């Protein structure tokens, strides 16, 4: 099954990358953009027919490796 995972910075955590991109957009003439936040998006196939098990596995993958839960949140969808 295909899994889509979003990993984003927690609220209040500085996002230097977002800041720099926002600045660049501004100097490109896109003056009306604000609060740019950059995260990761992952797609992966998980070969696990049991949905509940797949769910538990993806959660474990996020907690253990894909997200840095000290500063990042994650969410995912199974398809």
């Amino acid at each position, binding site marked *: 099954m295909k899994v889509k995972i979003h990993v984003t910075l927690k609220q209040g955590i500085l996002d230097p990358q977002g800041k*720099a991109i926002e600045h*660049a957009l501004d100097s490109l003439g896109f003056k009306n953009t604000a609060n740019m936040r950059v995260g990761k998006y992952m797609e992966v196939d998980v070969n696990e027919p049991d949905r509940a098990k797949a769910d538990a596995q993806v959660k474990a993958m996020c907690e253990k490796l894909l997200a840095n839960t000290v500063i990042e949140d994650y969410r995912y969808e199974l398809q």
Partner: protein
Amino acid sequence: MKIGVVVFPGSNCDHDCQYIFQDVLGQKVEMVWHKETLRPGLDAILLPGGFSYGDYLRTGAIARFSPVMTAVKAFANKGGLVMGICNGFQILLEAGLLPGVMLRNTSLNFICKDVFVKVENAATRFTNHCESGQVLKIPIAHADGNYYTDPVTLGGIKANAQVVFRYCTAEGKVTPEANPNGSLDNIAGIMNAEGNVLGMMPHPERCAETVLGNEAGRLIFLSMLETLHKPQLTVV
């Protein structure tokens, strides 16, 4: 000879490039702030290494929109010598002055070490002091040096002898083990079809002085100066 070294926010090899041309090779150097334009009278332009805009988003992606880049493109299109080292190479790619893109190193790590590169084309404006096939020991220092382009473009630049340097072993063999970053075809440096724009990942400015134990990089700068045909070339 007057060399322009462009300073982007986050450039950090700008002083090193200045030092080589000015203090080591006795040329004039003008530091060009990225928000300005090129003043007349420059003989060559150098885009130095570093982390322009922190390498945020993609390496070179934001720097290519710096105001100075319009003038750099015009300079290149008129046939002026332009060289991009490391981050400078990445900027040239994003700016479309050279074909292809840089991906993350296959190890995902930043890698700083000496590598060997083979001079694939010694008949260029940047390598005329080298022998064809000569092996140079030059350091790399990057996290995104994994050159990539589509097969058609690759075929084109190969056919056109635009591949200037390839990673190789000390003996000059171009092998996967000698490839530090996963770069397509072991490509370490390429030039444009016209031969006046060069991008290379290794840092020749870090190995052009006896006191640093290696002078291989000097060959590249001497080649450029030779190309610029100025008889008053003095090497101090």
